């Protein structure tokens, strides 16, 4: 028992990553508000980043940056954090795009709540070329 507990606790970043991922996914799937869904997406993605970076991290290691270290230093694996850089950029663009869509939906329906959108859908799209151009 204690062995397992130790194993889990020593890997606490992964535990937190899983927790955050769950919270994020839960928000995305259950919250009716579009903003909250977006926040959920961000939480979810950062959870994955945390897992990735934690896998590259070495206890007591140092970042491989020129001029700051001596020869005996243990370097961390820089690859995951470099990759997650791309990941963050991607998540920013997803957020920006989603915000643009939210704006558009608000213009059409006057709300950012999915339940209200569903209720108003019928009256708004009687004509499908409503606001073309």
């Amino acid at each position: 028992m204690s062995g397992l507990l130790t194993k889990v606790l020593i890997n606490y970043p992964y535990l937190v990553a899983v927790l955050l991922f769950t919270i994020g996914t839960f928000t995305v799937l259950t919250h009716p508000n579009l903003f909250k869904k977006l926040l959920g997406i961000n939480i979810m993605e950062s959870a994955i980043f945390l897992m990735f970076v934690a896998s590259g991290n070495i206890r007591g290691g140092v970042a491989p940056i020129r001029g700051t270290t001596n020869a005996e230093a243990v370097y961390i694996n820089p690859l995951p954090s470099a990759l997650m850089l791309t990941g963050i950029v991607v998540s920013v663009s997803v957020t920006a795009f989603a915000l643009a869509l939210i704006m558009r939906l608000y213009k059409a329906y006057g709300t950012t709540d999915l339940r209200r959108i569903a209720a108003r859908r019928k009256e708004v799209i009687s004509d499908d070329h409503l606001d073309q151009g």
Partner: protein
Amino acid sequence: MTTLIRANLPVLVVIAPLFVAFILPPLARRIRLVEALALLGAVLGLGGAGYLASIVLTQQENPFIYQLGGWPAPWGIELVAGSLGVFFLLVVGVSVPVLLFAQGNLAAEVGGAERVTRFYVLYLLLVGAMAGMAVTNDMFNVYVLVEVATLSCCGLVSARRYPRAAEAAFTYLILATLGSALVLGGIGLIYLITGHLNMGFAAQELSRVWLARPHVVLMAVSLIVVGFGVKAALFPLHVWLPDAHSTAPSPASAILSGLAVKGYLICLVKFLYGVFGPTLLQEFAVHRILTLLGGVGIITGSILALTQEELKRRLAYSTVAQVGYLILGFGLLNVTGLAGALFYLASHAVIKATLFLAAGAMLAATGKRNVRDLAGVGRKMPITMAAFTIGSLGLIGLPLFSGFIGKWYLLLGSWEAGLILPAVAILAGSVLCAAYLLPVIRAAYFAPAPEEDWPDPGRPQKLALLLLAAAVVILGVRPGPFLELAQKAAAELLAFY
């Protein structure tokens, strides 16, 4: 010059559409030029794919390995154009006729020149990403390409200023991001235990270490299957697809249903067979789950399609069903079945593009969305409806059309796997497919036509429809190199089994 091109072929195929995409925005004023350049970008990609296919098929170099920046794997990133990659690169060629179709009616569907340009930019980004998925051999690259593809898909879905489309795009964006997050998690777990992002090296390492960490591997497999499953509309995860594909502008629907979904499936195949390997799949019974989901997907998707009144929604649900065929074939775990699924993938790409474009042309000419209102359209728009008919017959799986060959090998594959239920699902799927597509044809040809005048679309659209319809027939009558590539790819993927 030629040697330079030949040496850099895999990367050029990906770069050509992307490059064109980036030079388009400043030219937005000159819409003709934009259209010509966009077409050029797609054609260049297809031409490169054809050249690459000839190299690989004649065994001059198979697989054709390209190291980005000259760094050898595992340190550098490599592109591998094997049989599978080349096969999918050729399938990406569907984008050319679809683009040709888009040139005529896009302005009417999405609005001004600037929006049309944006559409082409997103379109070419999608094509570039798909080409990248075909040749990449690096897992993180897959993630990046998947994200590029997802964002451009969402852009394409929301290209019409139409609240329903924005809603569909938002749902799609959220679920697709969820899917890519899952995929990234899966990739992270594989990296965690193998220390490689290169698929080949990861596979080698994985075959050594998986026994020590079976749970991590199981977790990774599930994350990747579910992640790509969401993106490729694998049956219970398909909820976003019907809205997204039916509200998008018609060329976008064609490319989304025909191609985008297939890109994720090819990635899934690469992960399942190229990273985990058949032995592991069998160990965790993943293949059985895939076959089961595929079979259920075929039946449910078809029945849902049957209940749709709106033509484009009917086609969208039909995509859910057809993805079921592919997933079912991926799970059969034998060369015949996998080759059948791959060939079916190509065949469905062509057929669904034809169907969506024809439906789009009808929608543009008549303004009618429902199947019932399209009575008599066959007499007024003979070419459009002829293309639609050929596509439908292909999807139903009649001999002489491409769908038949895919279905034949899928059936043979399910027999080889010793399973009878998948075969039943495949056949029930084709009967249901006839039930939801033939009423459209019946209404079009045999119902009295109204007085209104519905002309066939313009010349580029007609050409696009005829090209695609011809491809459906050619793939059915002379599948030759395509089938050969599919079989080779399947044999290579299952080589160590």
